[in-house]
């Protein structure tokens, strides 16, 4: 886990290389109690919704993006994740999640690191983007 004092503006976090499989989306939809079939799990229903195939739920993409930050800063470090869903995210495609530090500050007794975060595809698709704030410990 990084210390606050070691983080500088422009630092890169990640990338996290991942993909969402059919089984993972199905399991996510079950725990979400959105069991479908629906545009997240079914080819025909996705096409009815003018999609080329089933897509990853936005809140599942959000969970994947949060993983980048909890992997980097610890399970309880993520304070704020604010995302815009720009394009549908397909199943079984390489996804790259990365962040760039844009601000560091101390506020209300916490060491906060703000960053821009982006999920992209292999062809440069910008699927999901936004901002995040994590809290880091000081050096002992």
């Amino acid at each position: 886990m990084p210390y606050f004092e070691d983080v500088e503006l422009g630092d890169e976090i990640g990338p996290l290389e991942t993909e969402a499989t059919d089984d993972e989306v199905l399991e996510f939809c079950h725990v979400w109690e959105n069991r479908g079939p629906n545009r997240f799990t079914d080819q025909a229903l996705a096409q009815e919704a003018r999609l080329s195939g089933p897509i990853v739920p936005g809140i599942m993409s959000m969970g994947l993006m949060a993983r980048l930050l909890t992997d980097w800063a610890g399970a309880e470090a993520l304070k704020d994740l604010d995302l815009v869903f720009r394009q549908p995210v397909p199943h079984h495609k390489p996804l790259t999640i990365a962040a760039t530090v844009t601000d560091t500050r101390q506020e209300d007794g916490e060491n906060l690191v703000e960053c821009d975060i982006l999920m992209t595809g292999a062809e440069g698709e910008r699927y999901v983007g936004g901002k995040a704030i994590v809290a880091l410990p000081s050096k002992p």
Partner: protein
Amino acid sequence: MATELDYDRSLHDKEHEAGPFEVTESQIQAFSRGIAETNPIYTDPAAAKAQGFKAIVAPPTFCTIMVHQVSLSDINLKFNGVPMGGGMHAGQRVQSRAPIVAGDALTASSHLKDVYAKTGRSGTMVFIVWETTFRNQHGTVVADVQESYVRRG
């Protein structure tokens, strides 16, 4: 031409309550598998207890799966007098306030936070933002979740 955004503004002051929702160990583990999360604090009770928690901890965006269980009112949106229906999920924000652990019972309270229009090359889009506050069984706020939906004019 002046544009007019009309909707049920009383919903800004109306709280839609739901719950309690019991957070189970199997729910947290399934959520974690869905996002390929392997941190043992989210999956292994012994690892969570070793870090001082009474049970496994929910990943920070866990509450997002509960928002849809709140029954929200129709805002009766009209743009320039024309009803606007449908809508796509445009964005999501989660602000984590306190840990959520297995065994917690969460309640949700949602209200209409914002409605605004943006006009670009493809026309006018209206954004609708709902904010949901989650509290645990002790009354502690554990997360605020904002969901944005967009409708095209």
